[in-house]
């Protein structure tokens, strides 16, 4: 019973936040709704006994991405007061694509035979995850970190070029 109530609260956060993002005319509110939605998602992770993922979700999505979006909005003076329209010229295309995507997802969820285990969730997920990252999944893990490093260096180089051009 308690679990259902908590799940319900988190669902309201995720869906309400998502609905807020697409329906509000104020970009700043949209970013705040986005962080609400992300926080609700972290709640799901906690319910699934994945506390580490929940913390990562909060740090990366609420602490970094939502705040970067807010910062970008703050730096662009134009959107401070104007009411942005929710749609652009491609809305008819979205009207076709979104239901298709939705139906595909529903189809997948219903059709795929999801493996279900009756075993209790592992207590120490964290050490097992660490062992897997540096054991069986070492190469994907390292490739991913190299990718992130490339993105980081690329961002710095892009930002630097602008600086040089100005001088």
């Amino acid at each position, binding site marked *: 019973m308690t679990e259902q109530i908590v799940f319900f609260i988190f669902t309201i956060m995720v869906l309400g936040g998502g609905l807020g993002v697409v329906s509000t005319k104020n970009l*700043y*509110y949209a970013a*705040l709704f986005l*962080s609400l939605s992300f926080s609700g998602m972290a709640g799901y992770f906690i319910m699934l006994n994945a*506390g*580490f993922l*929940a*913390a*990562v979700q*909060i*740090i990366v999505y*609420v*602490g*970094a991405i*939502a*705040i970067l979006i*807010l*910062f970008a909005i*703050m730096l662009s003076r134009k959107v401070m007061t104007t009411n942005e329209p929710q749609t652009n010229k491609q809305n008819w295309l979205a009207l076709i694509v979104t239901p298709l995507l939705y139906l595909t997802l529903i189809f997948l969820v219903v059709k795929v035979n999801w493996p279900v285990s009756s075993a209790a969730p592992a207590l*120490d997920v*964290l*050490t*097992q*995850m*660490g*062992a*897997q990252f540096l*054991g069986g999944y070492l190469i994907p893990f390292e490739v991913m970190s190299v990718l992130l490093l490339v993105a980081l260096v690329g961002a710095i180089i892009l930002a630097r070029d602008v600086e040089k051009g100005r001088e």
Partner: protein
Amino acid sequence: MEPIITWLANLLANVSWWPWPAPPSAAIIIWVVYGLFIAFGIAPLAMIVLTWLERKIIARIQDRIGPNMAGPFGWLQAVADAIKMLTKEDTTPAGADRIPFNLGPGLIAVSAVLVFAVIPLAPGIIGSDLNIGIFYVVAVGSFGVLGTLMAGWSSNNKYALLGAFRAVAQLVSYEIPMAISLITVAVVAGSMSTLTIIHNQAVANGGWYIVAMPITFLVFFLAGMAETNRSPFDLLEADSEIVAGFHVEYSGMKYAMVMIGEYVHMLALAGLSATIFLGGWRGPFVEQLYNAVPILGGLLGLVYFLAKVLLFIFVMMWFRGTLPRFRIDQLLDFGWKFLTPLSLFNLLTSAFVVKLFQPAGTAGVALPAGPLAGFGGLGLTSALLISNLLVAFIASLAVRSLARRSRGNVLKAVAGVEG
């Protein structure tokens, strides 16, 4: 904790006027609600005590007396201030975004209070022993940044907005060295749980981490000071430049919430530093007493813990009383060009040393013992201390040569203009 819950359960079972038997979880629920009341009750109390303490200490540093009229040593002054805050008019600027404006201060205060969930106050007394303990601390800190941003933006005031800009630059940059120093601690302790970290700081296991990892402690504490917006890192409020920064438009209880957030954050940082680097409630005779008489041992542990917390709080106030504020570029340079590389380098060397001294064990996979595992905890502590000092030495050399080069460049530039 368990004795108290058992005691509560027995108490509930023996209530004569209640006709139905209490469910077994009732004692736990009462205990949790009680804990929540304590955690959220500490917040305003901490603000009252710490404002008084801060005014007194800074007054002494500046050769003044400080508040001395209301009550003995002026300690009623803070209570009077609290009553004044409660009775003040709660204003909202006409152009403000009402909902985020009202949510911001609450978010700031709550994010600071949440940290206490993982800080063990005394042996056996902890909100929740999460296995992601110190990582959780970094995560809940993000909500504080969000709260600061909401407050700064929605006030619709240019000083508040400037404060919010600075908040993002500062809080997001200093989160990185802080997280890396916490990772270093996790590598050395082999766990992120605060209870395990305290357990590993027993003398037999190598003693306090401040001895083993002074550099990590310095990075953590300085980055933490920046996260709490305390002077000399108080650029986002900087009363002499941007009036009060992000909370310039707040009054009454909402202003009090911002202040509660600041002081509780300070308390949380001091509590965390005490837990991670000074062994938390560890001290002479605590464990022996706890095994004999749990309540007395717990109280003694609480006393030691509070003494350590107050020590850190005093250091923070001392900083505020003596150091001038950073300039924004100095602040970012210090964070990105000094603390971040230093903490990364320190993480590398610490991980190497830990690997050498690590005893055999299992952490998901079987871990072989390191070549020097025979030296035990004290060997690890001394090796870590030596590696930390080496890192500090190399860092000071690097800083010196960089400073010389930049000074040389400035001289060349001056000469070029003149010649």
